[in-house]
């Protein structure tokens, strides 16, 4: 094939390949049909989803879906960019479900998003004002049906209202306002009993979602709000609180108290002159680098941070070194043609690798039971493994050693078999003894092959949340520092901080994730550089 092209073209065969491929009609009719069908489905899906996305005002998804469609059409409808045809499917998935979430995490890390700050400011103000709605004597009353087109526990919830003085009229109320005469409503005896596409909540579900329902206040055109009154009724009333957008204050019309937004920690609240909060509701706000500063300056975090960082490093290092050495010893020992039953040995030694990780971890966690656990049983010891930090660390490492060595055994066996025999033969002829030959010839060659896998294993263990979480849960915890456990690695420790007592702090958790991304990346890059293993990537 290369002969057909100008020999001066170093990449002749490839550009030849490209020429051939861009010729029309090469793929024949069936391939063309598949292509047309595929692109048709893609475009059709995008068109079908557009109304729903416009309805939900999900502009981001709308743009994303049409961008994906455009990329797919551009890639597959034209004869150009041959490599792209092969790269696009996986890259799209990677971009959507790995890279984009990482970007989203980085974005969130600059906010205070979390419990109490999940809504934007406008929604929060509406909720605060709505919660102050009080009934007056002439308040209109409604028969209420609470329904959802989502999940009965988390919503979103919609109120279907029938005025008690006009049992033929129906209103559909959401946080956006009231709409009259919704479609698909079944009216029975002055009450909505079913709505197409919605699930009507029963009393039990209503009380389970009470906290969220209490935040719902449906604005009406006259400036009043409709709020629920129990499980089956609602009333319309005027709020006693009034928000002044220009001054950014809330005024209580009954007491004339004025509440202004004031910063407390990483969030703002409306407080009066005495500093009394009107509500514990705050809102999502940009906090700049505050979350990052907190990681490095919060004394509660930094007091434990260094120790945990060191242990994380030790844990990842020992896990890699331990499993590699054990796997290597077994591989070298058994990789001798005179050993009978090599296949059986191999089959048995890789068994732990075939057992799903969570099973191994949960099983091993039962081994360390002080009274009935297998480890104490076999060794005759009476160690409370998870009781002390040192023994718990040993337990974690031992478990990881068992889980990881079969992989390293496979890797080492494969690498050993890939080393040309002439090399070891030559070493022998030159008079190198068994071990010296191994150390000088085989081992360095083997290391070149396995180094990237070792780096990847290190990175994996550095963030091996599962191993810690399922084995020890990070424990044991000492009474003077109940947040930092003896076996906590960075990821398990910081996630406990972010999701533990004090409410969910997603902004902070995101900052921690970003820091872990960076640390892992730097360590991996340094290791790759040290092993020089990526220099010949071509």
């Amino acid at each position, binding site marked *: *094939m290369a002969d057909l092209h100008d020999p001066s073209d170093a990449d002749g*065969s*490839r550009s030849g*390949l490209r020429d*051939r491929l861009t010729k029309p009609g090469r793929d024949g009719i069936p391939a063309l049909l598949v292509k047309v069908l595929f692109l048709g489905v893609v475009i059709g899906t995008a068109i079908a*989803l557009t109304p729903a*996305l416009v309805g*939900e005002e*999900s502009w981001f*998804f709308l743009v994303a879906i049409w961008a994906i469609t455009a990329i797919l059409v551009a890639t597959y409808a034209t004869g150009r960019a041959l*490599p792209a*045809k*092969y*790269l696009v*499917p*996986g*890259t799209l*998935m*990677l971009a*959507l479900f*790995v890279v984009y979430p990482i970007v*989203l*995490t980085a974005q*969130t890390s600059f906010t205070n998003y979390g419990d109490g700050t999940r809504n934007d400011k406008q929604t929060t103000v509406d909720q605060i004002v709505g919660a102050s709605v009080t009934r007056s004597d002439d308040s209109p009353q409604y028969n209420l049906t609470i329904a959802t087109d989502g999940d009965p526990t988390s919503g979103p919830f919609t109120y279907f209202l029938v005025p008690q003085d006009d049992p033929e009229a129906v209103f559909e109320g959401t946080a956006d306002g009231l709409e009259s005469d919704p479609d698909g409503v079944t009216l029975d005896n002055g009450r909505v009993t079913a709505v197409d596409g919605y699930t009507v909540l029963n009393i039990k579900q209503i009380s389970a979602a009470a906290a969220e329902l209490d935040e719902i206040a449906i604005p009406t055109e006259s400036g009043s709000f409709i709020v629920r009154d129990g499980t089956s009724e609602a009333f319309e009333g005027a709020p006693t609180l009034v928000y002044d957008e220009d001054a950014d204050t809330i005024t209580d019309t009954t007491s004339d108290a004025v509440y202004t937004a004031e910063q407390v920690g990483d969030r703002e609240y409306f407080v009066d002159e005495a500093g009394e909060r009107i509500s514990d509701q705050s809102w999502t706000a940009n906090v700049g680098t505050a979350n990052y500063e907190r990681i490095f300056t919060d004394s509660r975090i930094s007091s434990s941070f260094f120790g945990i960082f060191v242990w994380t490093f030790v844990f990842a290092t020992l896990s890699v070194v331990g499993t590699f050495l054990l796997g290597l010893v077994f591989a070298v*020992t058994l990789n*001798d*043609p*005179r050993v009978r039953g*090599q*296949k059986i*040995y191999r*089959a*048995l*030694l890789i*068994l*732990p*690798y*075939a*057992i*799903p990780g969570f*099973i191994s971890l*949960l099983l091993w966690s*039962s*081994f360390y039971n002080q009274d009935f656990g297998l480890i104490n*049983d*076999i060794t005759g010891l009476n160690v409370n493994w998870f009781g002390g930090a040192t023994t718990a660390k040993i337990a974690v490492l031992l478990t990881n050693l068992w889980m990881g060595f079969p*992989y390293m055994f*496979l890797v080492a066996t494969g690498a050993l*078999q890939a080393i040309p*025999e002439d090399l070891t033969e030559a070493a*022998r002829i030159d008079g190198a003894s*068994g071990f010296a030959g191994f150390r000088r010839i085989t081992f360095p060659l083997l290391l070149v092959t*396995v180094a990237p896998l070792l780096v*990847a294993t290190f990175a*994996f263990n550095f*963030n091996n949340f599962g191993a810690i979480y*399922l084995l020890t849960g990070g424990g044991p915890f000492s009474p003077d520092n109940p947040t930092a456990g003896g076996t906590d690695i960075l990821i398990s420790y910081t996630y406990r901080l972010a999701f533990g007592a004090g409410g969910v702090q997603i902004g902070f958790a995101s900052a921690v994730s970003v820091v872990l991304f960076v640390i*892992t*990346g730097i360590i991996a890059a340094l290791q790759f550089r040290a092993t020089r293993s990526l220099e010949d*990537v071509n």
Partner: protein
Amino acid sequence: MTQVQGPPPGTTIVEEPTTAQGAGRGRRGGDRAPKVKLGPGRWFREVGWRHVVGMIAVVWALFPVSYLLSASLNPLGNVVTSTLIPQSFSLTNFTTLLDEQPFGTWARNSLIVCVCVVFVQLLFSALAAFAFSRFRFTGRRGGLLALLLIQMFPQFLAAVALYLMFTDIGAVIPAIGLDTLPGYILMMCGGSLGQVWLIKGFFDSIPMSLDEAAMLDGASHVQVFFRIILPLVRPILAVCGLLVFVGVIGEFLMASIFLRDSGNKTLATGLYGLIDADRSNNLGVFAAGSIMTAIPVVILFLYLQKFIVGGITAGGVKG
């Protein structure tokens, strides 16, 4: 062939051993085996000790498995009475699991997830590997290195973002939102390029002349990929698929965040729920479920064993 020592004096070599695998095969066949006759002491120093280490290795590898099996057969099913070696044989735990727990649902869900993720990941990885192996384009080396780096970050680090993202997606398309199997599968497909390096290593070992000959015969690049290259690497695809399968079936963290509804639980979250409810008394049922989960995987492992050895390393980083 790591021991560089030659045949020691006092031995008779009938046939030079070739490779480890070759020798293994030959031995079973009989006549092609290297006939090395050693005295007993010599034999132990050269070969016997390897069996001793091998036995120790096997005991180390298998004692937890033996305990798991024993616990699953123990009718009392608690930690206190479970032993390393099975003392009794009772299928109580298995029947309890199948009758009282939705084990079938968990297994079905796990199977659906595994099959979809394995298929997508193999196909997309193989496609990308073909591009990296056969074409030269700008950003090729950078792309390969970027892939390596991105794979070091567990998706769990972005768990919150994924959770929020799929909540939003579910508001528009409920079928692929949070707490749905398709949504979970889609999320797991983010790792679609996970096997590129491994598969590329094998594509590289297939000579380009093969593609070129096919093209001269009028094949298109699609045909070269599907009809020539893919069939040649079938064993390595099987190994990759198996590795992905083990990873997916054991995936616990994201599943526990994504799949809350009991009808959507996978084997990982379902069995975790069992043992978490009562760590000491549910051990037997948990062990029974674990055995049933692990057996198909183990059988696949044993079946593909000869491809697995070497397969993992070969794609390593040879470029």
